């Protein structure tokens, strides 16, 4: 037993390859949070008065709240007055094309393996890149616009489509939702906005890459996606950050709205800096993501691969309001070294014949702590609601932990709710079996972990799935003695 534990522990050390710091000049406000800070951000972004007011209302509400204590997480609480709430890469003017992007910034994206030009030319993925707080480049905008699709930074959407933003902003995640959502509503600086008009199937994957670059800043972005009747969109989100000794806060909000027969597929590969082996530094990732299946026969599908962050607190959820609507949640969460994750989903069944599927795969290594927290709620009117949940945990070594907190609340007798859970360890016998076929231990562990995550990976778009597999490998990589 101790032998196999040692073997496994030998990998658990990992190197973070996105930890470089880019030397981009940035425009940063001094740390601190007050109504003045919020007015400053709003003014800096030339926002309309209604949005400034919306922010201030959220801020005032936030001041009445305290940070939630219920998650299964241990960390030093953030000093919200020590964070800078606005940092933008310095730019002289609005960009007309990618060629005008700061070359240092371009290098950053090259290092991330997402050369914007490449993306633009080869893969047909439209990318919106958000560094620190500001969207720096959105590709393919004009081509998408021909079909009436709006895909832009949040700031641009506020400027050009205020009616849409005002109509939907906060409609799924109101500022009163929770501590971090209230904070985000007060100070959010940018993010992505996407609108797919009636009957349009978005011809390419839309993608946002988020990066926290400046020191002592928080990143608070907001994403709003609206799929009108019969529309379809697949959206990808990726994130990285430099290695820094202090913890940095990321408190994002994502709102999805699917009208009648619309479909939104939202995929995330989250690789924020996880901190070092001893738990120093790393991103605090407190994110509120929720989708509303507003119309009948609509569908929202969340797929997430969470390998980064020191702390992950995140529950992408679906409100199944429309009859026959469907919600899906596929998740892989990996915690290594001192990482902690408390993640899961909520499926709220309101309409008739609503369906939800939850597949959660938690991997714990090192001293990582991984909690699944999920709620399935079937309201009185949700006749014939169905849910299937499966939560599997995989342990590597004997110093890590896996926890499951399922909450099931059924108020309609015709509902069917199934919950399956399992916990397993990578067996010494599995590793030996693969060794005996010529596969070395590190590759064997990667193979076993990837097999464990297969049901989730197959939900990801092809190239993202490949990236996710590699990322899991890197996150578990280390020296084999």
């Amino acid at each position, binding site marked *: 037993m101790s032998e196999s534990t040692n073997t496994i522990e030998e990998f658990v050390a990992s190197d973070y390859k996105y930890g470089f710091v880019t030397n981009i000049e940035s425009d940063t406000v001094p740390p601190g949070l007050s109504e003045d800070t919020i007015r400053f951000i709003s003014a800096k972004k030339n926002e309309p008065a209604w949005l400034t007011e919306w922010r201030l209302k959220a801020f005032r509400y936030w001041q009445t709240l305290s940070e939630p204590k219920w998650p299964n997480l241990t960390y030093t609480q953030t000093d919200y007055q020590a964070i800078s709430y606005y940092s933008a890469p310095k730019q002289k003017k609005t960009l007309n094309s990618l060629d005008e992007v700061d070359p240092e910034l371009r290098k950053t994206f090259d290092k991330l393996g997402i050369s914007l030009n490449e993306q633009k030319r080869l893969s047909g993925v439209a990318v919106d890149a958000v560094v620190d707080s500001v969207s720096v480049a959105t590709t393919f905008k004009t081509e998408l616009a021909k079909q009436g699709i709006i895909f832009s930074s949040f700031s641009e959407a506020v400027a050009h489509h205020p009616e849409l933003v005002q109509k939907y902003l906060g409609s799924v995640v109101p500022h009163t939702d929770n501590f971090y959502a209230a904070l985000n509503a007060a100070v959010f600086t940018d993010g992505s906005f996407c609108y797919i008009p009636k009957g349009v199937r978005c011809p390419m994957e839309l993608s946002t890459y988020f990066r926290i670059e400046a020191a002592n800043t928080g990143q608070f972005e907001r994403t709003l996606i609206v799929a009108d009747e019969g529309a379809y969109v697949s959206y990808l989100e990726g994130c990285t950050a430099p290695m820094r000794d202090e913890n940095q806060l990321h408190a994002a909000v994502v709102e999805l709205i699917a009208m009648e027969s619309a479909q939104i597929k939202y995929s995330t590969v989250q690789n924020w800096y996880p901190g070092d082996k001893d738990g120093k530094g790393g991103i605090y990732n407190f994110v509120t993501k929720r989708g509303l299946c507003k119309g009948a026969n609509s569908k929202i599908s969340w797929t997430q691969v969470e390998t980064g962050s020191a702390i992950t607190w995140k529950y992408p959820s679906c409100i199944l309001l429309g009859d026959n609507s469907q919600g899906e949640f596929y998740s892989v969460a990996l915690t290594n070294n001192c990482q902690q994750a408390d993640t899961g989903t909520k499926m709220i069944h309101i309409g008739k014949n609503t369906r939800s599927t939850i597949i959660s795969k938690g991997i714990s290594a090192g001293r990582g702590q991984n909690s699944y927290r999920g709620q399935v709620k079937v309201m009185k009117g949700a006749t014939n609601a169905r849910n299937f949940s499966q939560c599997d945990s995989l342990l590597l070594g004997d110093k890590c932990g896996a926890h499951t907190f399922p909450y099931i609340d059924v108020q309609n007798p015709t509902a069917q709710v199934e919950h399956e859970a399992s916990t397993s360890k990578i067996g010494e016998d599995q590793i030996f*079996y693969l060794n005996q076929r010529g596969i070395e231990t590190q590759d064997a562990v990667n*193979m076993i972990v990837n097999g464990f995550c297969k049901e989730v990976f197959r939900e990801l778009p092809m190239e993202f799935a490949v990236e996710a597999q590699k990322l899991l490998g890197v996150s578990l990589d280390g020296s084999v003695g």
Partner: protein
Amino acid sequence: MNPPLIEIKNLSAGINGKQILKGISLTVRPGEVHAIMGPNGSGKSTLGYVLAGRKGYDVTGGSVTYDGKDLIELSPENRAREGLFLAFQYPVEIPGVNNTYFLRAAYNEQRKHRKLEEVDAVDFLAIVRQKMKLLELPEAMLKRAVNEGFSGGEKKRNEIFQMAVLDPKLAVLDETDSGLDIDALRIVAEGVNKLKRPDNAAIVITHYQRLLNYIVPDFVHVLWNGQIIKSGGKELALELEEKGYDWLIGKNSK
């Protein structure tokens, strides 16, 4: 006479300080099939694990020379890449890992080790299909995850299938007959026979003689209490079947 493929000299080994193998000597040359028989707990499976290099099984004395190399010095994966194959008594399930994907990874590790170019998925499928035909295995086996949800018989057939693809110099079959009905046993044994060549060899570990009706050994060794207490030709297996292990054990303990 051919030079030995494996030469085990006075091998002692144990697990957690407990001595299980107490001085085993065995020489296997290319083209030979050796059967190791013995009652439960005599050390048969331990011998297989020690040869394959399983962690926790410590060699405390003696030597093993395999294909001119000191086997004990090699890591388990390098033993495999050098052509030593262990067909497991209890094949392990690797959930979610596709059988073909796994086998190609194993095949390419061996190729890399031998400084050969790796084969791509298309070429590999051609190799695999040919072996499946040889062993009369269903193609569906390729699409399934490694041993996941396989019946006992399917698992054993999958072991022989892997053996066919990896084409080892020395195969150690650990109780490949256990848990098999007579039809499955015949299919597995025929597979082994089809793979037999003058340049490879097999050590067949078994409790019962019945497997040896199908895989005819050149030599039979009886293992008891960590030692080979009798060696002979294929007729020794029949004698054991008739008289039981007590016949030898009783004699030996006198």
